[in-house]
């Protein structure tokens, strides 16, 4: 009985990881950069919703929508100001700029909102479902459903639309895509927009399920989601989904049955073992070597 509750808690956590990981993996696939600031965009999304709902009394759904717009704009602005000038620089230079952006967002939030944890009111109004003795919270249901919908829509978007195909082309070979008349800059910008919009949704769901909002709320889930993305095979959209869910479940089950203090060590050990067996992640593509 309790095993099922642990599993459902894990699924709920895993779905949040999965949504964040989707954003991570898209940006990585196209821009080939680890966007360490992604977790902090989630935090910005959380604060946007919090301010809208608590200070202005905006309806939760509208607040989430506005926050998606804010984060999308923020993501595009970050890309334009901080990452675009470095497109030809070494990947490490971009990585470090991303870290700078991450510090910048955290410290700005600290100055504006203070360090006190803000208790987030849930944006979800779905009632909890009771199956037998197990209760599944509304947040869990919405998170899991949202995660599945987002994954399907993203997959369709990439397969069926021109912009999606352009993304695929840029991720395969930037130069060749450019020669084929694809606007690489616009495509990368669009990817950041989508990734950051997803971060806003992830922020809303993360803070609804675990409602303490601080300037550092985004950093640990951000890292975990990054691990989830690598776990599933970075660059792969179903991979991010599977990786996120698995990570959440492993984390919760190891807390329940092995040691709550060593949960992180166990999660990271599983990651290492998976990568050793399958060096490109669970659903990652095999890279062929060229001489």
């Amino acid at each position: 009985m309790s095993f099922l509750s642990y599993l459902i808690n894990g699924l709920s956590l895993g779905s949040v990881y999965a949504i964040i990981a989707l954003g991570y993996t898209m940006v990585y696939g196209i821009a080939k950069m680890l966007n360490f600031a992604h977790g902090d965009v989630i935090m910005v999304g959380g604060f946007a919703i919090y301010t809208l709902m608590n200070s202005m009394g905006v309806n939760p759904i509208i607040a989430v929508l506005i926050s998606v717009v804010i984060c999308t704009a923020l993501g595009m602005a970050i890309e334009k100001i901080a990452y675009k000038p470095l497109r030809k620089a070494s990947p490490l230079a971009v990585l470090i700029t991303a870290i700078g952006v991450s510090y910048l967002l955290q410290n700005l939030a600290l100055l504006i909102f203070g360090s006190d944890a803000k208790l987030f009111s849930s944006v979800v109004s779905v009632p909890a479902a009771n199956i037998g003795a197990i209760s599944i919270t509304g947040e869990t249901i919405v998170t899991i459903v949202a995660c599945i919908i987002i994954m399907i829509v993203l997959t369709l978007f990439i397969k069926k639309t021109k912009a999606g195909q352009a993304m695929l082309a840029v991720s395969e070979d930037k130069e060749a895509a450019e020669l084929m008349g694809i606007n690489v800059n616009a495509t990368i910008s669009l990817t950041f927009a989508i990734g950051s919009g997803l971060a806003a949704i992830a922020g809303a769901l993360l803070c609804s399920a675990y409602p303490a909002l601080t300037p550092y709320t985004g950093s640990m889930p951000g890292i975990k989601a990054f691990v989830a993305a690598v776990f599933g095979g970075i660059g792969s959209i179903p991979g991010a989904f599977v990786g996120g869910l698995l990570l959440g479940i492993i984390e919760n089950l190891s807390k329940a049955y092995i040691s709550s203090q060593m949960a992180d060590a166990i999660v990271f050990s599983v990651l290492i073992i998976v990568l050793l067996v399958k060096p490109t992640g669970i659903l990652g593509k095999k890279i062929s070597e060229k001489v």
Partner: protein
Amino acid sequence: MSKQLKSNLITYGIIIAFFAIMQTLVGTGTISSLFKGLLVPICVYTIMAVSLNLTVGILGELSLGHAGFMCVGAFVSAFFSMCMKESGMNSIVRFIIAIILGAIVAAVFGILIGIPVLRLRGDYLAIVTLAFGEIIKNIVNVLYVGKDSSGFHISFTDTASLGLSSDGVVIIKGPQGITGTPNDSTFLIGIIILIITVFIVTNFVTSRSGRAVMAIRDNRIAAESVGINISKYKLMAFAISAGLAGAAGALYAHNLNTLNALPKNFGYNMSIMILVYVVLGGIGSIRGSIIAATILTALPELLRGFSDYRMLIYSIVLIALMLISNSPKAKMFFEKYSIKQLIGTKKAQKEEV
């Protein structure tokens, strides 16, 4: 004199000049307490940056778990010093043994971790090193070690489960870490370790093994095809890098009275900070790493005047430095007016005369 040797001599010269200037300032009492207190941390982070440069610059692999090795070195050496504190051993001898021990154990960890990790490549390797760093930090945080008349006791839950007899003392107390480490670290020892580190790294680079490592970095398949044992050389570089980080950890541990494994000092944040030093100083450039680590260690302290806006300004400086150093326009501007350029032309003139 070869170009390489000349460059190395300049590096040693800078270190020794820095040491001499600082020592004079300390001696005459004209230096602020803040800067005096920063001298040992500067040594710690320059050693970390030079050792990481071996992995990132020479070996060409992105490691995000370097702070994990520092953590190992710090805890091993502090544990040794705590055990030997009462034995009446000369404190300098004890500290040297502690440093060597910390470096050796960290190097062993480097080999143990390197065997699986170095099979991976690129960002996957990066994430696995990050994972190892976090695992080390997590395990240290649940590790309890005590000592009594019947020997050592180890537990992974709490002090009570150590089962110490009444004369026992708990040395490593989980998240509370080690308290009461003797403050053996001095600026002189720090500088000596830094010089040894630079010596090891520069000699490794010019050695046969180092050339093999760089061949692997530049073209793995070509290197393999001429019969270079890839795993062996990669592992060698990785272990040396880890061992030097361990020595830096020992220096760190003996500079403070307390040692805890926090996300701040041994987590991935620290690994990334060290990486920032390496990248800003120029990947592969030992001298660059030293200068960048020195400045970036001092920078947040020098920004204290801005109080609440300190870390905000620090992050903006970080972004601006990366953007400027990669912008073609700024590059042109600085090349025109660079100090090196000026020195360079003077030298050229001299040679002509």
